[in-house]
């Protein structure tokens, strides 16, 4: 079923909206969630929470691109759960690695003063990603939005793993420079 038709089912409050979404994007959302959460039961539950969130959000939302819209919900929910479950311990898996890599972009001072609201940070990061050349932007998002490994990204884009790591490292440096320039760090 076309995405527009699925969104229409949500707007009609049709019971078929969720099963149609599950059929089309169930596996996709599970893949997004599983890259953040290592535990299968947690991932399954989190994906079900994605459907509930989508049901509650549409309407009033009318997402133009359903797949990335669901991916954002899934990522946020999975990260919330990751945070709550790893509050007391160092987390394993790809998410911990992703977070440690992102720490490179930040100042060394542990308690850097919060000069801007999260919305401002989001605005700068969004603009930064949009201005990146397509290849760098895509590789950055696959790593830091979707938590994919360098090997997966390399396979996706026909690059070598070393090439992916170099691209990511270069983009992180650029991001750090941008955040510094914007006085966010």
């Amino acid at each position, binding site marked *: 079923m076309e995405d527009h038709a699925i969104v229409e089912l949500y707007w009609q409050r049709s019971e078929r909206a969720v099963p149609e979404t599950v059929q089309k*994007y169930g596996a996709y959302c*599970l893949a997004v969630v599983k890259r953040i959460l290592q535990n299968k039961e947690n991932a399954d539950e989190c994906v079900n929470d994605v459907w509930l969130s989508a049901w509650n959000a549409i309407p009033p939302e009318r997402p*133009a691109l359903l797949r990335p819209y669901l991916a954002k919900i899934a990522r946020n929910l999975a990260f919330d759960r990751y945070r709550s479950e790893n509050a007391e311990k160092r987390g394993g898996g790809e998410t911990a690695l992703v977070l440690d890599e992102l720490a490179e972009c930040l100042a060394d001072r542990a308690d850097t003063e919060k000069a801007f609201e999260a919305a401002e940070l989001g605005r700068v990061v969004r603009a930064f990603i949009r201005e990146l050349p397509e290849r760098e932007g895509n590789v950055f*998002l696959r790593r830091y939005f979707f938590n994919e490994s360098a090997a997966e990204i390399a396979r996706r884009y026909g690059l*070598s793993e070393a090439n992916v790591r170099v691209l990511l490292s270069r983009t992180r440096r650029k991001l750090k420079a941008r955040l510094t320039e914007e006085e966010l760090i």
Partner: protein
Amino acid sequence: MTKEELYRAIGTTEEDLLERSETRNEYGETERETAEPRWEDAAIQRARGRARRMPSVWRIAIAACLVFVLGVGGAVYANDVREYRTAMAFFDENGLSTEGLSRADIKSVYRDITTARFTNEKTAEVILNTVPGLEIAQKEPTPDEIEAIWNRNIWAVPLPASAGGMTYRVEQTERMGDQGFTVLDKSIVTCIKDGEEVWTAEYPDLLVFSDGVVPTADGTAVYGQSYRWSSQQPVIAYLSRVGDDGTVLWTKRLDHGFEQETIYGVVDNGDGTWAVISRGDVRTLCLSQYDIDGKELSVRKTETGIYGIWNFTRFGDGYLAQLGNSSTGTTARIVKLDREGNILDDFSYEGDDCFYTITDMIEYGGRVYLSTHAVPKQTDEGGRHEIANVLDYVMERMEESRNENGSGYDVPNDELTRLVRDNYTAVLLLVEPEDGEPETFYAVKGSLGADLNVNDGGELVWDVQSVTSTFFSPMTSSFTIGGMCEVYRYAFDARGRLVREQDTGETVPYRR
């Protein structure tokens, strides 16, 4: 700033960029294309230098061989790349993980699934790892079982919109956009009668909603909105009039000063004018009137809070609109509007001991009928305001069983069905124009109220979904109860008398 905050900030990336990243591009090849010519230039120059010294017959023979070798090799390479790309796109489309798979594995799994063989052991691994919600007890599932799981991905065909004797089909076509992903090309509205196409109208770059087609005495009203591929773009509402031959007579952009405006309903006032209900910038309810030439006659904007407009119908000299917000459990709030759009009355329909959810609304015989389902007020909602009591009961039984027997207890489906049937009552409410307060008109136990229509014979038809089976899944946290309903159809005459009850033989799923 913490790394978690940065991670969350990346999570706000616009949808179009995320979608672009899903598209497969062989950047490695792009690199080869830019890198190899430098190497090739030198080689070609050397070859050319030698070729200049060769007799022409040898030059032709060598060139022919090169063409053959490069042609065959290139074709093999190109086919390999094409199949790999197709396979990867297939994996993407279906959310299958490529983790741990080689390039050859990916292609073979793709072939195994698309040829419906399901015999490759990697296929089982991939499908079982990525298709959610199903568990297989055996260690080595059979190809039939793998196929059964995979076939859950068969997509259903949407039901067409229908009104009066006509049926309307709304479709969208897509094209590859400059952004590198597919975007809306156009919406196509088709009017069908007795299985034959009567007319077709096209709307380039405009998203027509599947319920955005309303037959009126003055042609067909069609509504939708501008297509946007990013949530950062504005939403512009459009209203259009189509003549009886399918000619688009006019398309009008609603301009009520909002960044985002969405039309929720259009009703024919019966005097050559249409009333349009829309919502602007999420919080403002907007009622505007148009003549048949698309001229705006009036508009009234009222801030009502964050509500969707779930139903809209004529009511006496004015209108009734249902405002809903499922995240706050607002499922039965009704506002009464006058012709100009002023809100005259605003009430939530709620019984002393039950909640109502309105699913459809229709004007018939000068009165308004509301199709609803009622559930008893729950002791502990916990976000599940319809089935909290059922879930509590199930959980208690499981706990008791665990304490007594040391093992879990599976609630039999027939017991669960009985519980759910006791929980739901389909109720047809009647609203008289004088007071606007709904009153119970007809009730069916164990059921959910569904669509209301007027059939070709001028009777009011109310569909009721009777719960016939239910299952419970403790594996999930959100949608824990689901099952099937049989659809019964009740017909009433203009005086409100029940004239017919029919088992349609149709079944529909439900989930809570």
